[in-house]
């Protein structure tokens, strides 16, 4: 029983503490980002995690990135710019050819539907 109580307590403690963070202005956006695979997912998410981003999850099936961010610290444009910089075309910004050239061979989403 001791353990159960300890665990519940630990759980409660942990899960109540971050609540204060929610008072800040956080918004959620869904951004369409081109990509193919798990490697793309890693690259896209890492790129999306710029300062002010709380959570970013890209789904390979729908090619959509769900991103939570603080509007006082960053913007959708900033996030999209960072993603394009990593080589992934998205709703707002298309990656330059140089940026696109950096992605791994298996992630060449622009060529994907041509072969």
């Amino acid at each position, binding site marked *: 029983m001791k*353990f159960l109580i*300890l*665990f519940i307590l630990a759980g409660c403690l942990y899960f109540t503490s971050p609540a204060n963070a*929610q008072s800040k202005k956080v918004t959620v956006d869904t951004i369409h980002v081109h990509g193919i695979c798990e490697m793309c997912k890693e690259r896209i998410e*890492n790129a999306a995690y710029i300062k002010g981003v709380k*959570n970013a999850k890209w789904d390979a*099936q*729908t090619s959509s990135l769900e991103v939570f961010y603080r509007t006082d610290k960053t913007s959708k444009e900033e996030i999209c710019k960072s993603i394009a910089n990593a080589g992934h075309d998205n709703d707002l910004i298309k990656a330059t050819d140089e940026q696109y050239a950096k992605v791994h061979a298996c992630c060449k989403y622009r060529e994907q*539907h041509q072969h």
Partner: protein
Amino acid sequence: MHHIMYSLVLILVVNFAISQTFLEGVVVEENAKGILAPLIGANVYWSGTVTGTTTDTVGIFKIPDDHNNHQLVISYIGYQSDTIQIEDHDKLTIVLKSTVDLNEVEVIFREKATKIDFRSSINKQIMGEKELFKAACCNLSESFETNPSIDVSFTDAVTGTRQIEMLGLAGIYTQLTQGNMPYVRGLASSLGLTYVPGAWVESIQVTKGIGPVINGYESMAGQINVELKKPEGEEKLLVNTYINQSGRSELNLHKTFKLNKNLSTSLLGHGAVRPLKTDGNNDGFMDVPQMQILNLTNRWKFDNQKGLMGQFGIKALLDDKVGGQMAFDKSLNRDSTNPYGVGINTKRVEGWYKTGYVFSEKRYKSMGIQLYALNHQQNSFFGLRNYEAKQETYYANFIYQSIIGNTNHQFKTGLSFLSDHYDEVFEVNYFRRLEQSSGAFFEYTYDYHEKFNLIAGMRVDYNNLFKWVITPRLHLRYAVSEKTVLRASVGRGQRTANIFAENMSLLASSRSFEITSSNDKSAYGLNPEKSWNGGISLSQDFRLNYKEGVLVVDFYRTEFIDQVIIDRDNDPQKVLFYNLSGRSYSNSFQTTIDYEIMHRFDLRLAYRWYDVQTDYLEGRLSKALVANHRGFVNLAYETKNKWFFDYTFNVIGPKRLPGTESNTIPYQLETNSPSFVTMNTQVSKSWTKKWRAYIGVENLTNFKQNNPILSSEQPFGRYFDSSLVWGPIFGRMIYLGASFTI
């Protein structure tokens, strides 16, 4: 993932990864005026898979055929996703409707090291490569360190064998399969887990509660299926090494060869040695035995590109372990009473063949056959006690899969045959058993969108020793919402106990084995074990501080109708085997939270509680050496440049120790073991996806059970017992290793 369950067997039988044909079509939108226009960049993928593509500038797509899946999903931001049933090869025209509500996006899947299959009606965790990396060493018995549903403990302080437990019941009640064919069973019950090197494993599926009927009637508390790396997989070469401070060294190799577009093969090799003798607790006994293992597998896979696919393989294993007192030398003191020694020598050869055919015009229809043969020989001695055993097993399973009307109603049916032949010599007693069972099964799957699934299975077998075996099983899943899933399962299981092989740890004691037979023709004169298992689980996705998490709560109950009772409480100088009269049950409750604290920083918290009670001759007792409480924390952090940090914390509650009160004072134990904490940690780094190096520490706090061997100074005396192990038998252990993959 959608169809993982339904096609569980066929995926393995037929392996659809390489596809031969393409499905083509066009995706168009219908505007307000009803005019059709092509949609550019729409996503097209097979439901529940990552096989997908996007439409080109005129809305056309071409997607590799997926024989295993006939549900194609088309999605496009701002449009309603559409799932269509693919029945034939005709070119498709798909019309997507615009939707105002942008939130109508598909459920987002997170790629986790361990994931619970959200859409399957079976409570099944899939442990991928990432999870397996967390336990750097070395074989299946050590792969579950980060899985709170499975308890791993040492069986005794001499053979160094680890056993698993699910739902508070010994590993023997969990069916262990490899590629969904029989694997760790029979004579391999104790050591079999160590015969699967971790580096060979692609994934492990852990099912809590009863399994599907297709794989036989033996799953009682759970099922663990291991998938080895495939010849047609992405990995071309793997070299993996490991060494720890006790001198244990391991080497793994995996090499694939693609001979042509129809045929591929792979070689898997594993060698392990522990040449040194170590005695960390100064009891005169080696903590773990010296060992030498050589394990080789050759796998083949063919695909005629027209729907016929198959694979076959052969596996050979040599395992030699020598343990006991430090002074023991096998070549000199084999039959003497000083010093005490233990030797276990195992030779094992297995072969399997699986083939499957998918009807190309009707992709929902397929059939497959699985064949398996095994020869297992063990020669062993524990002091002056000899145990020699042989097992020959043959297995065949034929599966036919189709639908009733539409793909909401699927079924699998088939026939199976299992033959086990055992020859055992224990001390001066000879036991022989030929057990054969033939049976038929039918499994119906109902799938109502993603809201509700049901799997109802029934199998009827005829066993030459135990007559008819009826095995009904039912799994239900109901998605209350996108974030909440309820599951329930109930079913019957049966198995035949191999009392010596399953209790080998008891051989390293002075206990005499006494069997109370109730009939003369069955296994050792004992009844088969029969049980009902039922459980419910709730899985709740949540979001906290913008991060996602999953809470899983489950409860399982197993009630034995018949059980072979292993009674160590009656007399500390004996172990009694007899049929259950009265009740024996296990209740298991577990709650687990998986949560992403930060990007790339995952937390897993778990608590589990067991109540396992059995009616012994001396009355109802809770099961010995099972902890009622266990708490678990795992933290995993990964940096951008591929450093991985992993930390596991376990707190294990008191365990009841078998009764020793009739022993003279120095050989009496407490009634319960103390609770204790163990911690493991590992740091690894990978470079360019090819190189990976790791260093870790097992049992960080150096907690050890003092005197794990009772009467270790007199191993041939009356009180000697090495099976009263409740905690770690060796202390802090540092290991390091590296792997190279291309």
